[in-house]
C-alpha cells in the first residue's frame, strides 16, 4: 500500500535533492534554471511534481510542406532571437527512417540540460501539456522514461510535426518540456539545485554521452553504468554573490 499520509501535502513531503547542469558551459547564464510548476506554498500535489524546462530564446521554426523532398526546416529570422550559428548547434533533423511515421517529420531541439541525483530515481520527459502555448504547437515532443540515477543523459525535445501547416513559435520563458521524478517514496518531492562540476561527474557523463551512436541496445549499458557509477555524482554548487 502506498503511504497516503503526506500525499497531496507538499509542505510536509520529504525532499530529495536533484541537481541540474547545462550540457555546455557556453552562454549557460542565458538558460533558465528548471523549476516546479508550483512551489511548496502552492499546495497542489501534482503541480509540485512537474518541473518545467523553459526556452531561453525566441524562435519561429518552420518545416517544408508535405511531399517536399528533401524535407527540411528553417528558422524564421525576424521572429528568432537565437542566432543562426547557435540554432545550428541546438537543432537537428531526425532522419526519415528514424521517424515514428513516414508522414510525421521530427526535429530535435537540444535542451542543453541534464539532471543528476544520487537517490534511486526514474525520470520522465513529457511535453508541457498544461502550458497554454503547447496548444499552439505543431505536435508533441517524443516522451520517455529512464533510470536517472545511473544515466544522467542530456535532454532533447524532439518535436513530432503532426500539423504540417503550423510553425513552432517559442518565446523566451515559454515551457519547452516537463520532467517528473519518481523516487522510492511516492510522497517525496524533488529539491532542485544547480549541480557543481566534479571530476567524478565529468567522467561519468562522458561515458554516457553518445552511446546510442555506438550500440543500439542500451539496456546492458544501464547495468554497466550502475556497476561503475561513483557513489556520489551530485555535489550542489555553492552559490553566493557579494551583498552590497
Amino acid at each position, binding site marked *: 500500500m*502506498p503511504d497516503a499520509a503526506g500525499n497531496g501535502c507538499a509542505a510536509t513531503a520529504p525532499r530529495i535533492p536533484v541537481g541540474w547542469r547545462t550540457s555546455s558551459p557556453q552562454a549557460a547564464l542565458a538558460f533558465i534554471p528548471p523549476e516546479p510548476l508550483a512551489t511548496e506554498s502552492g499546495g497542489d500535489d501534482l503541480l509540485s511534481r512537474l518541473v518545467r524546462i523553459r526556452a531561453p530564446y525566441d524562435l519561429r521554426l518552420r518545416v517544408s510542406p508535405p511531399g517536399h523532398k528533401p524535407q527540411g526546416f528553417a528558422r524564421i529570422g525576424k521572429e528568432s532571437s537565437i542566432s543562426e550559428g547557435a540554432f545550428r548547434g541546438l537543432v537537428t533533423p531526425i532522419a526519415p527512417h*528514424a521517424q*515514428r511515421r513516414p508522414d510525421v517529420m521530427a526535429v530535435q531541439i537540444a535542451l542543453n540540460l541534464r539532471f543528476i541525483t544520487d537517490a534511486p530515481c526514474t525520470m520522465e520527459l513529457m511535453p508541457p501539456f498544461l502550458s497554454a502555448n503547447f*496548444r499552439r*504547437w505543431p505536435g*508533441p515532443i517524443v516522451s520517455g522514461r529512464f533510470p536517472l540515477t545511473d544515466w544522467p543523459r542530456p535532454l532533447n525535445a524532439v518535436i513530432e510535426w503532426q*500539423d504540417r501547416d503550423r510553425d513552432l513559435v517559442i518565446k523566451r520563458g515559454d515551457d519547452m518540456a516537463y520532467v517528473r521524478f519518481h523516487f522510492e517514496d511516492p510522497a517525496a518531492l524533488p529539491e532542485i539545485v544547480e549541480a557543481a562540476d566534479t571530476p567524478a561527474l565529468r567522467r561519468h557523463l562522458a561515458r554516457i554521452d553518445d552511446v546510442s551512436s555506438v550500440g543500439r541496445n542500451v539496456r546492458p549499458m544501464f547495468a554497466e553504468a550502475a556497476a561503475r557509477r561513483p557513489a556520489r555524482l551530485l555535489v550542489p554548487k555553492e552559490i553566493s554573490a557579494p551583498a552590497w
Partner: protein
Amino acid sequence: MYSSTERCPVGYCFAEDESAFAYQPPRIVIEGRQRPAGARAIQNCPAVNSLERQLIELPSPVNLRLRMKIAGPGKAEIGVVQKGTFVEPARLQKMLTLAPPPAWPHPQRPLLQLRLPYFFVTDDAAMASMLPPFFTSAMRRWPGLMQPERWPLSIWPQDLIWTLEWQDPDGELQLKQGEPLGYLHLEFNRPDKRPDLVEAALTPALAEYRAGMDQVEAITDQIEEIWDTAGTRRPARLLTPLDETADA
C-alpha cells in the same frame, strides 16, 4: 531495471452494466502504435517504450460537439451542437455537467465535467495521475485545458471525471467516441513494474468499498485523513478479473 519483467494487474470496471458494450475499453498507449520504419526509429527507443507502457488511454465514451454560452461571471450554460452529437439528451445530462461556479479557477472560465463510464482498481501499490492526452493533435484544438490530478489508486478506486477548464469563449469542443480524453499514468513501488490491463468485476466487496468513498466530500474536506482511514479499512482484495467470475 527496465526489463519490465513484472506486470501488475490493473482492472478497468464499468460502473454500470447498462449499455456498457457501447463504450470502448481503456488501452495501453504502446499497443496502438505503428510498426517502426527502421532500427533507429523512435519506436525502438527504450525510454519511449518504457513510458508508453505506463500510460493508459482513456477513450471518450461519446461523440460530442459543444459550445459554451458565458453570460457573465459565474454564469455559463452548455450549448450542445446537434450535428456531431449522437448521444441522447437524457443520457448526456447524466454524464455531462458544469462544476458549481465557486470551483471554477476563474469566474469567466467554467469547468466542464464529463463522467467516464469506467474506473480503475488494483491490488498492487500504485499512485495514479490523470493527464491530458498530450500525444494527440485533438487536445491542441480543445477550447481549454484539461485539469490533471493524482491520487493513491490502490485505496481509492474512484469514478473518473474528465474536467476541462473552458478558456476560449468562442471555442468549440469536439470529442470523438474512442479517441483519448486523457491518460492514466501509473506509478508502482518499483520502476520495473508495468500495468497489465484486465476487465474487473464489480464484486460486492468492491461495490461496498466504493459506496464508502461516495459523497465523502459532503461530510469533510479532509481527504488525506480519509485516505489514511481507507488504508486501514480496505479489503485485501478489490480486483477480481471478470473472466474469473463465470459463476458469480
